[in-house]
């Protein structure tokens, strides 16, 4: 057996199998469930690390299974897929820790962690998908695996949000499938390749290619929360905090953004995109989403809703960077895929901590939290600074590359969009930080003592502290070999070096 070709399969299975086992566990088997959860994460991280060094050395990991005529089921580990796999595995580790602490003593934990693992398996499978068909498969599975998490609480609001989530994502999935079927009927579904595989069709079928592009981007835009399709995201806030964290940072919105990256670079390719004139509309759409999301975030009084609209805006940076088609902008977009994930998950962890420990949901209730919960507040502050793009944080690296990429690719107006958005980011985050640190403690709705030593339960505290440290490290050590930035440069080198 060729181990290299099985490695992507094992990476998917390392969370799928524990997930299936967890479903069958009785509610009270806390230790076994935790062992399975963490064991799965650790195995996955080891396998991913192995693949990471292999891909870096130019190794190819390719698994193929007969599926449909003209398109096999392919798992393929390349530099781009690894970016997303790494992000989701690392963030899965911290989110699992957080979720164990968060759900302690609540009912239906086996079901929760079962679907949680399925959700990560679908995300990783989606990242490793080697062609459009496999991608569509995991995209749909992801919808199904996340739905039970969104409605986990089973209350009227969460069910309403769940229905809305399904209405959006299932429709989006169907549209994506139509687009994939259209392309499949033209060329089959070959493996993703840098530069795309559609240029031979350009002369004859340019109309159909445009239609396919619109269908694919619409289908992916639902999950990526592009402008008219973002309605489900703020509603889905009723989910438990670890789910929101996962949804916003890794699983769902990122799946959409990652899909857009794949479609632009590896299905259509830069040349076809330019010849079909598809760049402008996508850049416009992304810019509009960025501004609209920031604007709406400014109006929200609920902390999680403000963060949700901020996600709408921030995820579109990825689309923007990719749509401009220049290598520098691409680095910015790709690195933001990771940076946004780490920053947003920190913010959601902290919001969850405030809600769990002090019962805080509204922004005006945050007064003086900094002294009661200093570590969470520091983490929150770092995440917010990153989002604004202040120096020495990860966010600044993304914005720097996006801005210089915009100039490089000939989109000076995008610079204006970035500046406006950063200003809006500052406008909706700085007042929050001001309340946390500078105002005297107010009346917190429901203060609880979750730990004698720390400000809150250690399992809730550790994850945001880790990710906050990561934000700073990714900002300071961006120049080193291990940083997401240098990996993004590697991806761009490989994506743009075809002929």
């Amino acid at each position, binding site marked *: 057996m060729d181990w290299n070709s099985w490695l992507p399969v094992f990476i998917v299975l390392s969370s799928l199998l524990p997930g299936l086992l967890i479903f069958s566990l009785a509610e009270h088997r806390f230790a076994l469930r935790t062992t399975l959860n963490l064991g799965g994460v650790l195995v996955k991280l080891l396998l991913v690390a192995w693949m990471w060094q292999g891909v870096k050395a130019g190794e190819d990991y390719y698994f193929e299974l007969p*599926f449909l005529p003209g398109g096999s089921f392919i798992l393929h580990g390349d530099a781009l897929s690894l970016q997303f796999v790494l992000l989701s595995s690392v963030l899965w580790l911290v989110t699992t820790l957080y979720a164990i602490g968060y759900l302690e003593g609540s009912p239906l934990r086996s079901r929760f962690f079962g679907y949680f693992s399925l959700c990560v398996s679908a995300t990783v499978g989606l990242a490793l998908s080697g062609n459009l068909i496999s991608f569509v498969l995991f995209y749909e599975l992801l919808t199904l695996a996340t739905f039970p998490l969104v409605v986990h609480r089973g209350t009227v609001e969460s069910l309403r949000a769940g229905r809305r989530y399904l209405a959006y994502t299932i429709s989006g999935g*169907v549209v994506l499938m139509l687009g994939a079927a259209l392309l499949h009927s033209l060329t089959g579904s070959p493996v993703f390749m840098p530069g795309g595989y559609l240029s031979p069709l350009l002369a004859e079928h340019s109309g159909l290619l445009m239609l396919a592009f619109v269908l694919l981007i619409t289908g992916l835009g639902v999950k990526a929360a592009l402008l008219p399709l973002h309605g489900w995201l703020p509603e889905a806030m009723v989910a438990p905090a670890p789910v929101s964290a996962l949804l916003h940072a890794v699983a769902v919105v990122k799946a959409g953004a990652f899909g857009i990256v794949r479609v632009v670079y590896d299905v259509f390719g830069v040349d076809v995109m330019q010849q079909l004139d598809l760049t402008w509309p996508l850049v416009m759409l992304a810019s509009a989403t960025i501004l609209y999301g920031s604007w709406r975030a400014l109006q929200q009084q609920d902390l999680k809703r403000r963060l949700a609209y901020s996600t709408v805006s921030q995820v579109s940076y990825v689309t923007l960077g990719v749509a401009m088609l220049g290598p520098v902008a691409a680095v910015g977009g790709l690195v933001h895929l990771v940076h946004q994930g780490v920053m947003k998950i920190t913010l959601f962890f902290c919001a969850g901590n405030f809600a769990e420990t002090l019962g805080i949901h509204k922004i005006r209730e945050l007064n003086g939290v900094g002294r009661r919960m200093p570590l969470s507040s520091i983490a929150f502050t770092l995440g917010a600074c990153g989002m604004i793009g202040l120096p020495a944080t990860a966010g600044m690296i993304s914005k720097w590359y996006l801005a210089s990429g915009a100039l490089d690719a000939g989109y000076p107006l995008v610079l204006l969009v970035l500046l406006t958005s950063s200003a809006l980011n500052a406008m909706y985050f700085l007042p929050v930080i001001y309340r946390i640190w500078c105002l005297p403690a107010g009346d917190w709705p429901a203060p609880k003592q979750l730990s004698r030593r720390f400000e809150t339960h250690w399992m809730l505290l550790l994850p945001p502290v880790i990710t906050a440290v990561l934000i700073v490290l990714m900002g300071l050590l961006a120049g080193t070999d291990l940083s997401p930035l240098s990996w993004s440069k590697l991806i761009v080198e490989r994506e743009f070096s075809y002929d």
Partner: protein
Amino acid sequence: MNFALAAVLLPLLAAVLALCWRRQAARLVWLSTLFSLLLALAALWQVVTFGPASMQLGGWQTGLAIRWQLNELSALLLLMTALIHSLVASYSLSQWRDAGLSADFWPLSALLQSALSSLFLSVDLFNWYVTLELLGLAAVALVLLSGKKALQAAMRYLLLSLAASLCYLLGVALLYGHYGWLDVPQLAVAISEEPVDHRLALWLITAGLMLKAALWPLHVWLPAAHAAAPAPVSALLSALVVKGPLFMLYMIWSQLAGPELAVTGSWLFLLTGSMALVVGGWSALRTPYAKVMVAYSTVAQLGYGLLALGLMLHLTDPAFTQALFIFVLAHALAKTSTFLAVGEMQLRLGGKRLSTFRGASQTMPLAMFAVAVAGGSLIGLPPSGGFVAKWQLLLPLWQHSQLWWLLPVILAGTLLSAAYIFRLVVLAFNRAKPVRPDFAPALLPQWLALLPALLVWMLAFASGSLLSWLGG
């Protein structure tokens, strides 16, 4: 061929034995379904290895004898029949005392299997009539097992079924009167040699079969009958019984209609199929009763069959034949699972309305999971069998821009099916009221309901061989 013959005769024998020896009826029929499953597998293996075969029953020469034909398609349908029957029989065996299922179920279901299997193997208009009649009578009797409350639905089913048979018989008589053949391939040759106007005969046959298969707009009897029957019976009716006449429609139209008539017929099928998808889906979404919803979903799903049949006639592309029969297969598995799981939950949770299922994801997670997974195939999510069928249907469509209007129809059908499936699923995720502490539904029936759903969910990975068998 011998294996296939045995797969037909074994259930017949079991039916007779079960009538004589009622105390062991359940076990006898259950064993016979398992063995006929093995026989059907052997028949498929035989076809794949040695190629198609045919046989003349009774040793008469062609034209007088009843001809049976075993090819990849009929072997696959035979296997489907045996598989669904063995699944349903296993479920009923684990369950029939609790469910109050009468012992008459066993001989009747065995008779049903025998009739349907021989229908799939026949290529003879009169033999089809006989098997169709048997199938209809057994089905009506099975619906009646529910007792008095099913009387009205069963009577309606019976009357319409008889009317349909008459219609069909009249058409057959017209054809026989003119050409003197009942054997379909011979008749096809005769028609091509002497093309007189056989339109009336074909339309009569079509009307009869559409009524039998509950194809829109002749579906009126189906929701009541399928909803009133006991759960295992509903599963058999929805998964298998309506597929018999659908198969005959395919055979008759693809072989006996000339190219010109085929195009006219294709319009009928395309239009009724589109309407079935949309109207059936809408009715499924509106009904407050769980089993009625599943029954309407059958009406809607048969719309895909009609579309595939219409497109096959319209564009003569073998991809649509593949789509038609993969759809038949996927729907059979998915519907078995749905009906068994819904029936099981109704039985344990006590209630017919959708609101019964509130919180079912906690009280009966396995059965609910079965509904959701099977629902994925009904919607057409990858990698399920429903997805493969829909994919085969969609792909060639992109090349034929004159039929673009089918795309929104299929899209609407997909979204409607997603809506009614998830309507149930969302209800199930409602936090349940605490149940009695002694509420511990048996797990085996739930697993048996889940099994076909898991099979259909993985069907795409077997699509390579399926497509090549159906490729023609």
